[in-house]
């Protein structure tokens, strides 16, 4: 149990750093989803099923989806001549 917690905590630190270091928003959404999933796993290991439930749905599915819809709308908003580097 001690090893599992240590591994999950280090994975969480890595995925958090990953979210910060991916500068392009589109790829960051994937990193956010991974971060949400790792958080949910850590919560399961910390014996917190209720919070794992909430985190897996909100952190890994609902919020990244909001990000995707916003990014789609932003790419559409760009006038034809603007560079499409999202």
């Amino acid at each position, binding site marked *: 149990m001690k090893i599992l917690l240590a591994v999950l905590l280090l994975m969480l630190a890595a995925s958090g750093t990953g979210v910060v270091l991916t500068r392009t928003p589109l790829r960051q959404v994937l990193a956010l989803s991974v971060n949400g999933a790792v958080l949910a796993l850590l919560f399961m290991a910390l014996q917190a099923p209720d919070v794992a*439930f909430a985190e897996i*749905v909100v952190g890994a599915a609902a919020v990244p989806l909001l990000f995707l*819809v*916003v990014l789609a709308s932003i790419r559409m*908003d760009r006038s034809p001549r603007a560079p499409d580097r999202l």
Partner: protein
Amino acid sequence: MSPKIRLLVFLAAVVCILPAVGRLALQMPAFGAHPLPYGDAIDAAAPGERHVTNMVSAINFDYRGFDTLGEEFMLLCAVTGTVVLLRGHRGEALEARPGIVRGRAIAPRSEAVALISRLTAPVIVLFGVYVALHAMTTPGGGFQGGVIIATGMLLAFFGDGYPGWRRVSNSKVLDAFEGGGAALYALCGFASMLLGLPFLTNFLPIGTLKDVFSGGLMLVENAGVGLAVTGSFLLLFLEFLEETRTKKPKDGP
């Protein structure tokens, strides 16, 4: 400040904070080996007094129910703010004829996605209702169930395209869900005050342990939270998706 100077200032501050963080980490109570008086008091009291087995729901809806009242209206406040911020430009009315934006090519959808979404959407919504109902006995509750239901109903967008999604999410109904759910939670509190008890006291019969319908007033509050969260998240999805349906500069005449 230029980005470089700002980074230097930030790093200098971090270097200055690091020793304090180190000392703090070493002097924190031992991880996993320090007394938890509040949690143990609730674990001892809740199964006996409220006949519920999910301690987190007992805290959320009864012992610290007033926090959840604030949490509910926080959600209501954020959704109202998002609606105001997003709908401001589009004006009040949602798109009358959803789905077809003149001059924009219809993106082809793969049948596999449509099939899988149509198959799994009802199952996920059913699972969400299950999670929301079993708040008192097994992990889960109004909030988790509500978000699962909202995400499940969003699959209708992948299954039947935008018109299908707009049939599922009618803004008037969702407003009533959300405002009504939050108001139901507040009225539960006032109901106990009408009976002369303190705010949010559990005055309904509390049923038997491990039974789905145990916990008395907590069930009504749980239903209120479930309604409000489902309404809120669906409204959020609707507002943001509606943004992609307005006329964009790239669309043709």
